[in-house]
């Protein structure tokens, strides 16, 4: 409290070990080291791994999960979880493609309506979590199934454009983010650029605006945040809606990448990968702690694993095994650091 006392405490912080511990504990440093290790491992196992086109491919494979993981980060920062990211995205994707091909909407209108469908799901989740105060886990588990069912009902289990029907291809606006430009000899996908821009925006909103502070405070201790006068229900609602917006944009990216509206998209891989990315990135499931930069690194780690395992010839089913183990490991680290903090 007084100057002499605080300087008496200071030496423990100045000790080199303590300093090293603090650097390692800084957000995103741990995930970054993990990423470097993973990349080192795969570059030893495969010569192709570190080549430009392959790295560009990794990012291209990451862009959908990365954007989903932005929304997931926001939700997890408020001590919630969103299990519906994948199926909500699948619904948005079917809305976009079906409206554009079957119903003859203008491409941009179809895209906007598809994104709005995802935002509506966010509004639904957010109202139940913030207004009715239901646990996010159960609400979004319900939404996962609702979105899954709606996707199949609305699409009649068909992919868009339907195979061999001779109907129109998807309009180019829906495929925009799959286009590439070239730097050196490497093709970069526009969608990857969009992903980085969205991460930048999320970083800005979380660290440079009052809204971001309120998201952290709400996740840290909702009652304390409410007593300081923060409207925590509004914060929660906004978080789930921004999440929905992200899933909608991810749906557009997915259509661009696969050139298809697929009712079976987003069921396991994207859902698990988005949560894995957030947790690997150092965001705590207990809320209030984490960064989107960490999530970006986490998403790239997941992408590197999937890509690297494919390169060295590991069967796809083992990738599920590895991501499953990865997410449990990351959650264990979170739990252990949380316990130490208490």
């Amino acid at each position: 409290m007084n100057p002499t006392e605080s300087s008496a405490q200071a030496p423990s912080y100045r000790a080199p070990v303590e300093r090293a511990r603090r650097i390692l504990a800084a957000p995103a440093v741990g995930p970054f080291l993990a990423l470097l290790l993973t990349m080192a491992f795969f570059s030893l196992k495969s010569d192709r791994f570190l080549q430009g086109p392959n790295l560009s491919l990794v990012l291209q494979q990451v862009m959908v999960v990365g954007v989903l993981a932005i929304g997931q980060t926001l939700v997890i920062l408020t001590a919630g979880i969103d299990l519906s990211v994948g199926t909500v995205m699948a619904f948005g994707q079917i809305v976009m493609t079906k409206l554009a091909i079957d119903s003859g909407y203008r491409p941009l209108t179809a895209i906007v309506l598809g994104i709005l469908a995802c935002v509506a799901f966010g509004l639904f989740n957010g109202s139940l979590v913030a207004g009715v105060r239901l646990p996010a886990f159960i609400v979004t588990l319900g939404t996962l199934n609702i979105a899954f069912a709606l996707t199949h009902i609305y699409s009649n289990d068909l992919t868009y454009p339907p195979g061999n029907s001779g109907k129109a291809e998807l309009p180019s606006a829906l495929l925009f983010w799959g286009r590439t430009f070239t730097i050196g000899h490497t093709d970069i996908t526009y969608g990857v650029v969009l992903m980085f821009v969205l991460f930048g925006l999320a970083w800005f909103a979380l660290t440079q605006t009052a809204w971001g502070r309120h998201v952290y405070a709400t996740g840290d201790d909702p009652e304390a945040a409410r007593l300081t006068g923060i409207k925590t229900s509004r914060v929660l609602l906004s978080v789930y809606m921004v999440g929905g917006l992200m899933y909608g944009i991810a749906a557009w990216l997915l259509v661009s990448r696969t050139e298809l509206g697929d009712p079976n998209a987003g069921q396991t891989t994207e859902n698990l990968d988005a949560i894995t990315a957030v947790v690997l990135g150092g965001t705590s499931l207990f809320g209030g702690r984490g960064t989107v930069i960490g999530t970006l690194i986490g998403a790239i780690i997941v992408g590197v694993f999937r890509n690297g395992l494919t390169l060295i010839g590991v069967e796809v089913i083992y990738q599920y095994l590895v991501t499953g183990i990865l997410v449990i490991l990351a959650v264990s680290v979170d739990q252990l650091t949380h316990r130490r903090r208490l």
Partner: protein
Amino acid sequence: MALDGADFELYPNEIVAVIGDNGAGKSTLIKALSGALQVDNGEIRLDGKRVRFRTPGDARRAGIETVYQDLAVAPSLDIASNIFLGREARRRGPLGVGLRMLAKRTMRREASRHLQELKIGIQSMSQRVENLSGGQRQGVAVARASKWAQRVAIMDEPTAALGVKETRQVIDLILRVRERGLPVILISHDMPHVFELADRIQIMRLGKRVAVVTPQTHTMPEAVAIMTGATQAELEQTLVKDGEAPPAASAGEGP
């Protein structure tokens, strides 16, 4: 816990302590005054004007700030963010208006100046509150309250979670807050501190105000006796016996 007949007054430049056994209604009274609870009946007057608080925000806007015993506001945020939480300063110009960007440097500078005025020796405003000691955390909470409170600062068991030395620091801090002219309501279990700090002491029992005493007119054992409902006879007995705090009376009549 319900309150009934729990009148309460506070005048400028004074520290009023509210004491009472567990469940006597201290916290309920404070929650009503700070907007965390809504009152069914009765009224709150501020400078003689009737006010109604529906949310903690209403009370804050009326100039009433509260420090709670469970310390920090948002442990994962830094000191400056905690002090400005819910009242963030935005940048001037397009960055602040269009992008709603925070004026971090201004907030850090102001937080630092305010903490120095209160003689709280914390160097860096960008430290996370969870890395501070308990006393420093409570220092931040008290500083936050005194920065924004225009009318009243309420301290609900501000030292309950602290050690002896840190308690001392917070008590000195509360005295400095009063020196700045802000009336303080102190809820505490700690009789010696209550008697050291308070100008008046309001004693609560079973949701009612049973007495208002001052450290000059009453001794600590007397206050405790009123608080626990010990009879005058029992009180005199214990005073004779050990001069210490009397045992809690089982079923006593108030004096």
